[in-house]
C-alpha cells in the first residue's frame, strides 16, 4: 500500500507542476470569463463579458477589457482612466478588478501563475518588471511606444520598459523625488528658503541651522528635516546622482558620503533618528503635515496627499512649496537629477486575440496628453510632461503658487530607482539589510559597504 501511495503522489506532483509550468502558454480570456461579482465599485461597465467577435479595429464592435487596480476607495486613477477611455471609445468597456495596495505584487504574481490575471495590468514598480518580462507575461507593445518620442521630454520613463530594443509596457505615471519645505517654519527660523541651487552640503548646513533656530524661537517639536526610513531616501539619490554609480555593480563606495551626511544629521539632532522613526512608526505624512520637520525629501505623489490632508484637517494649514532635490554638485543645477520609478500599464499575453487592438489603443491612450490632464486634475503626476500638466497640478486649491515649485515640477532628469536587470531585486534586498544596519547604528558605514560589496558578489552576481 505504501508503494502505490508513493507512486500516486509522484504522478500527482508531476501533474501539478506540469499544470504550473504551462501557465504562460494558455487559454481562456483570463479573468474576463467569470466577472467575479463585484469586479467592484468602479467601471462604467455592463458586467457583460461579451468577447467581441469582431475584426481588429477597436472602433467597431463592442469589446470588454479587464484591468487591474488597487484600493479603489482611495485610488481614483483607475476609474478615471477607464471612464475617460470609455468616453472617447464608447464601444470599449473596461471592467476593473480590485487588488490590495500593499500586496499587489504577491496577488498579481499568483494570478499570473494561475492564468487568472486580467487583460491589462499595472506594473507598480520596476522591480518585478524583469521577472514578468523574462517569464513571458508581458506583450510586446513596441508599436504603441513608437508613437511617442522617447528620450527626455515627452514620455518620462518609457525607456525603463525597454528590453532588447522592444518595449513591454507604457508608463502612465512617473513620480520623482523633490524637496518639500515649510515656508512658515523657514520664516519663523529666519532662514532663507531653498533657491533651487543647493548641494547636499548646503542642505545639511541649513537643516542644522533650522533646528537650532526653531528651538530658539520656542518650537519644541520641529526639526530641520525628516528622512523617512526607506532605503531609497539615501540610496536612491546616491545611485542616481553620483557619476558612474551603478546599482548592479559591485562597488558601493558611492554610498558613503550620503550615509555620512545622514548620520551627521541624526547625531546632531537635526532629524528624527532612524531608530525612533522606525520603532515609533513615524509616518512622513504626519511628520511634515504636522510641522515637525521644516524640510522633507519625498516623491511628488505627496503633493496630492498633502493637499487633501490640509483640506480635511488631518494636516495643519501652512504655506509650503517644493524645491529641486539637493544635488551632488553645481554642475546639474540647471537640470536637477533625481530618481523615481514609473508606473506602467502592460498587456497580458494571454488576452483574447480579438481584443488586442483595443488593449493597445488603451495603452496608447494612457500615455497621452488627454489622460495626462485627467490624471493631473486628481493630483497624479503623469508620465507625460508638459506645461499644461504643470498648470493643472498647481491650479488645485491650496497648491503652492511660487515659480520655483512649478519649475521644480517640470524640470528634472529622473533616473530609475530600480534599473532593469535580473540582479536588481536581489541587490536591493541586500542593500536594504545594510541600510538598516548603518542607520540603526549597528554597523559602521565602511564595514557595511564592504559587506555589501561582498554579499552582492556572492549572492547575486555569481548566480
Amino acid at each position, binding site marked *: 500500500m505504501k508503494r502505490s501511495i508513493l507512486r500516486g503522489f509522484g504522478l500527482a*506532483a508531476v501533474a501539478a507542476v506540469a499544470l504550473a509550468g504551462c501557465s504562460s502558454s494558455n487559454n481562456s480570456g483570463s479573468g474576463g470569463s467569470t466577472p467575479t461579482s463585484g469586479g467592484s465599485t468602479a467601471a462604467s461597465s455592463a458586467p457583460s463579458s461579451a468577447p467581441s467577435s469582431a475584426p481588429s479595429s477597436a472602433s467597431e464592435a463592442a469589446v470588454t477589457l479587464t484591468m487591474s487596480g488597487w484600493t479603489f476607495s482611495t485610488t481614483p486613477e483607475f476609474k478615471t482612466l477607464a471612464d475617460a477611455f470609455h468616453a472617447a471609445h464608447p464601444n470599449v468597456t473596461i471592467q476593473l478588478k480590485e487588488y490590495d495596495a500593499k500586496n499587489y505584487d504577491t496577488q498579481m504574481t499568483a494570478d499570473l501563475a494561475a492564468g487568472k490575471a486580467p487583460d491589462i495590468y499595472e506594473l507598480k514598480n520596476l522591480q518585478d518588471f524583469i521577472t514578468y518580462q*523574462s517569464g*513571458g507575461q508581458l506583450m510586446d507593445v513596441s508599436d504603441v511606444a513608437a508613437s511617442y518620442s522617447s528620450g527626455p521630454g515627452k514620455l518620462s520613463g518609457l525607456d525603463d520598459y525597454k528590453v532588447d530594443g522592444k518595449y513591454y509596457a507604457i508608463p502612465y505615471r512617473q513620480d520623482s523625488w523633490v524637496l518639500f519645505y515649510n515656508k512658515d517654519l523657514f520664516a519663523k527660523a529666519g532662514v532663507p528658503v531653498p533657491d533651487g541651487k543647493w548641494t547636499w552640503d548646503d542642505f545639511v548646513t541649513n537643516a542644522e541651522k533650522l533646528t537650532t533656530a526653531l528651538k530658539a524661537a520656542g518650537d519644541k517639536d520641529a526639526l530641520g528635516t525628516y528622512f523617512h526610513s526607506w532605503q531609497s531616501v539615501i540610496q536612491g539619490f546616491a545611485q542616481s546622482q553620483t557619476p558612474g554609480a551603478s546599482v548592479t555593480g559591485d562597488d558601493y563606495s558611492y554610498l558613503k558620503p550620503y550615509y555620512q551626511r545622514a548620520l551627521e544629521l541624526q547625531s546632531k539632532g537635526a532629524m528624527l533618528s532612524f531608530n525612533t522613526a522606525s*520603532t*515609533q512608526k513615524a509616518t512622513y505624512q504626519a511628520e511634515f503635515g504636522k510641522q515637525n520637520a521644516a524640510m522633507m525629501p519625498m516623491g511628488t505623489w505627496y503633493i496630492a496627499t498633502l493637499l487633501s490632508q490640509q483640506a480635511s484637517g488631518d494636516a495643519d494649514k501652512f504655506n509650503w512649496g517644493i524645491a529641486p532635490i539637493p544635488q551632488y554638485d553645481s554642475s546639474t543645477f540647471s537640470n536637477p537629477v533625481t530618481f523615481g520609478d514609473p508606473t506602467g500599464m502592460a498587456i497580458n499575453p494571454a488576452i483574447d486575440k480579438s481584443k488586442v487592438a483595443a488593449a493597445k489603443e488603451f495603452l496608447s491612450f494612457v500615455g497621452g496628453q488627454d489622460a495626462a490632464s485627467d490624471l493631473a486634475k486628481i493630483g497624479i503626476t503623469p508620465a507625460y510632461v508638459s506645461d499644461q500638466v504643470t498648470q493643472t497640478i498647481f491650479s488645485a486649491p491650496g497648491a503652492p503658487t511660487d515659480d520655483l515649485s512649478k519649475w521644480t515640477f517640470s524640470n528634472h532628469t529622473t533616473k530609475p530607482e530600480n534599473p532593469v536587470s535580473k540582479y536588481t531585486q536581489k541587490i536591493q534586498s541586500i542593500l536594504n539589510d*545594510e541600510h538598516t*544596519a548603518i542607520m540603526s547604528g*549597528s554597523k559602521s558605514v565602511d564595514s557595511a559597504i564592504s559587506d555589501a560589496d561582498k554579499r552582492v558578489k556572492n549572492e547575486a552576481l555569481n548566480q
Partner: protein
Amino acid sequence: MTTTALRSPSRSRAHKRRRLVVRNIVVGWSFLLPNFLGFAVLTLVPVVALFYLSFTDWNIFGHANWIGLANFRRLVHDDSFRIAVENTIYYTAFHVPLTLAVSLGLALLLNRKMRGVAFFRTAAFFPYVTSIVAIAVVWNMMLSPEKGPVNHLLNVIGISHPPGWSTSTTWSMPTIIIVGTWREMGYFMLLFLAGLQTIPPELHDAARVDGASAWQRFRKVTLPYLRPTTFFVTVILTIWSLKVFDLILVMTNGGPGQSTLVLSQYIYKTGFENSEFGYASAVSVALFFICIFITAIQFYVNRRRNR
C-alpha cells in the same frame, strides 16, 4: 471476539488474525478518510510539488527546468542561509523552554475556582487574539530606545545605557523571543488547562494524605499525567518556533541588518521578492528536514519514556 482458539488448527488461527488485521485496516481507514482525503489532495500534493520544485529553477512563470542538486549546492555556500539557520535555532532554543515554563505555570495557576479566574484566563489569551500588527506596533513603541517608556524606566533606576531592543543587532532576537512568548503563552496555557483536566483529583488527594509536598505532587502526579499534552505542546511549539514568520516580519523585518533573519522569512524573500522559487523551495526542504530531525528526536524520546 473470542474464538475457540484451543480447538482450531494453527492455520485457522492465523486466518482469523489476518481477518482481524484486515478489519482493523478497513475500520482504521474509515476513520481517517474524511480528513485524509482533504489533506492529501489539498495539502500533500502541493507539498510534494514543492519538493520537486527544489530541484528546478522555477521562477513561477515559464517552465521549471530540472537542475538537479544545484540549488542545494548553492545553499551550502550561501552566507545568508547560514545566518538564517543560526537565527532560527537561536530563537527556538530559547523560545521553547521559556514559553513552556510560562504557559504551564499559568495553567497551573489559573486551574482553579477563584473569583475572576475567567477574567484572568481571558487576559492571558488576549495577546494571541490581538492583531499581530497592533502587537508589533505597541511593543516597538514601548521598547523605543530613545523615547520609549521601558528605557525611560531603566534610566530612572540607574541603568544609563539601556539596550537598544529591536534596533540593536544584539538585542533584537531576545526582544522577539520575549514578545513571542508573551503572545503565545495564553494559547499553550489553554492546551495545558485541557490536559490538566485528565488528572483524577483523587490522586492528588491521596498524595496529599500521604504527606507529599506540592512540588512532589507536581512531579509525581501532575507531570506524568500531562505527558501526552506536554509532548504535543513541545512538538508544536518547536515546529512553530522553527517556522516563525509573521511576528518577525511585522516587528523587525529581519533587521537591523540580518540579525533577525529567519528561515521562513528567507524563503518568503527569495520566493516573492527575488522570484527565485526553485531556490526558495530548496530552502524550504532544508527547513523541513531540520524540523523533522528535531521532531523525530522528540518522538523517540517520548516513546522511550512511554515504555
